[in-house]
């Protein structure tokens, strides 16, 4: 998404944080609403929200947000919670969380249980095939399946929000590229990290 790059270019200082900022900026853009209007009054992209701004201008481990209730050091330090492990992948038309992801899910549950101020979004996605609406429901089922796995480790619903993008961000050419599995995932994102 080009708009992420724009923000990161202007604000980014440290390379180390680049990846997390990109993700956070993505969230910020989603949060900013991107409201549709009549064609004539097409609106510019909303500026990042204040929290995001201060986050972005803060490259020393995000001290502004380091409260004991958030446990950011744990979130950033535990390899099981690392960003490249945030995708939980599913089989075609399925929404069962596979056993291989349980260790990661359990680690997130432990983190959430120990960090009452932390809030998580679970975004469900599907591959391109099938209809938009069914896939929206399927993505929702995947997000809820991950939530329920977290619930089973004692996490309260109040810390989790489930949303679905269905097939809206799926790769149109996944069949040709034999990569549809990459789109069949629930992604775990923290509201502040």
């Amino acid at each position, binding site marked *: 998404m080009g708009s992420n790059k724009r923000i990161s270019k202007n604000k980014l200082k440290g390379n180390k944080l680049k990846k997390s900022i990109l993700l956070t900026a993505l969230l910020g853009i989603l949060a900013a*609403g991107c*409201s*549709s209007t009549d*064609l004539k009054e097409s609106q510019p992209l909303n500026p990042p929200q204040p929290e995001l701004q201060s986050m972005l201008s803060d490259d020393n481990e995000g001290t502004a947000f380091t409260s004991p209730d958030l446990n950011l050091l744990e979130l950033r330090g535990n390899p099981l919670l690392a960003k490249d492990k945030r995708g939980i992948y599913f089989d075609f038309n399925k929404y069962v969380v596979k056993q291989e992801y349980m260790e990661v899910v359990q680690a997130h549950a432990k983190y959430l249980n120990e960090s009452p101020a932390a809030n998580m979004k679970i975004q469900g996605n599907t591959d391109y095939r099938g*209809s*938009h*609406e*069914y896939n929206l429901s399927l993505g929702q089922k995947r997000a809820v399946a991950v939530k329920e796995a977290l619930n089973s480790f004692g996490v309260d619903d109040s810390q989790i929000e489930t949303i679905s993008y*269905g097939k809206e961000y799926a790769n149109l050419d996944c*069949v040709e590229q034999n990569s549809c599995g990459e789109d069949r995932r629930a992604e775990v994102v923290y509201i502040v990290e």
Partner: protein
Amino acid sequence: MKKFVYLIFAGLLFFSSSILHALEVIEILGGKASQIPIAVMPFKNFGAQNNIAKINSVIKSDLGRSGLFYALDTRGVTTTPNSDKEINFSLWKTLEAQFLIIGRVDFIQEEKMKVSWSLIDIYKQQTILSGEYVGKKNQIRAIGHKVSDKVYERLTGSKGVFHTKIAFVEKYNHQKYKLNIADYDGYNVISLLDSKMPIISPRWSPDGEKIAYVSFEKEKPVIYIQEIATGKRKLLANFKGNNSAPAWSPDGKRLAIVLTYSTNSQIYLINADGSDVTRLIRSRSITTEPTWSPDGDEIYYTSNQGGGPQIYKFNLESSEISRVTFEGKYNLYPSLSYDGKLLLYLTQDQGKFKVALQNLQSNQVLKLTKGPLDEAPVFSPNGHMVLFVYKDYGKTTKIGTVSINGLKIESLPLGSRQVQEPAWGPIKE
């Protein structure tokens, strides 16, 4: 004459939704024998500076798209008759034409023109329908569609859909979206909405004045209803969780919608003004893609209660649920014909996604398209044609039409646009 009677008879059988017959028709795929051969001559031009030749190509294209007509190549015919009195009927019989359309365009003033046309029955050797339309130069396509509608109704007994509108979503610059409307054949595209977030599930109100759709602009799917003429819109549903899959009741007073709250997709009813939300079906499974039967008594929908997605129906009076699709393991996206006798849906067949047509009386299923990645089939308001999305390997998504006899499949001229989820507007008089 005998042949013609047979064809009309075949047509009647087909439109009474005999899939058995449709299968027979399909077997002569590519054959012209099951289509009515018609010649559409270039309209004569009186006093026009502009090229009005396209009026006959509009008519040819309309009739051809329906799958019921075969537009003859008339390039070898050098003299265009002015009326049925000037017609060399034996010539047209040799060309195997059963009907002939002729016409003329007279320019009244600079901007206005009069289009006169006649439909001639070659076997009866007489004009069976004629008409006149006055319009502006830029209405030439609209007038052509009107002629096609008249001819279609006269020869098939069903209303034509050639002056109807469609809506579709266009994705551009990777992650931007437009909600567009256009003529049924893809011409005259107008954008109703531009958004940086996905738009899905556009649905015309039964009166054709409004479109309900789902937008992700509030970080999640919510449902809007937008007036086409004014561009004004209002939020219909923005409840906790996902709000999606709007389906207008036939009287336009209510919609079936899908809400998740904090769990999975369930079907609810809501008044068109946003009041009175009630849950229709309680299920642990996905229930989505509601669509009303034309009599308003039943709601067809997709559910995965048996594992893979299948189409079910819910009777609003008895609350009885029954399964509708049985062939294959993956059937979804139901769309009903105007008479409620035929059901369209997307099916997975040997790894390919195809448009399926099911006769709801015999439950016979016909695959209308070959895939590999088709989706989102919807009926034309007269039930004779289908709009659907297709994608060839390595290419972007396109919208096509396919006639329900399977004889004519054609793409809409939308260029390189990446398009999704067409919706076909109603016939407006």
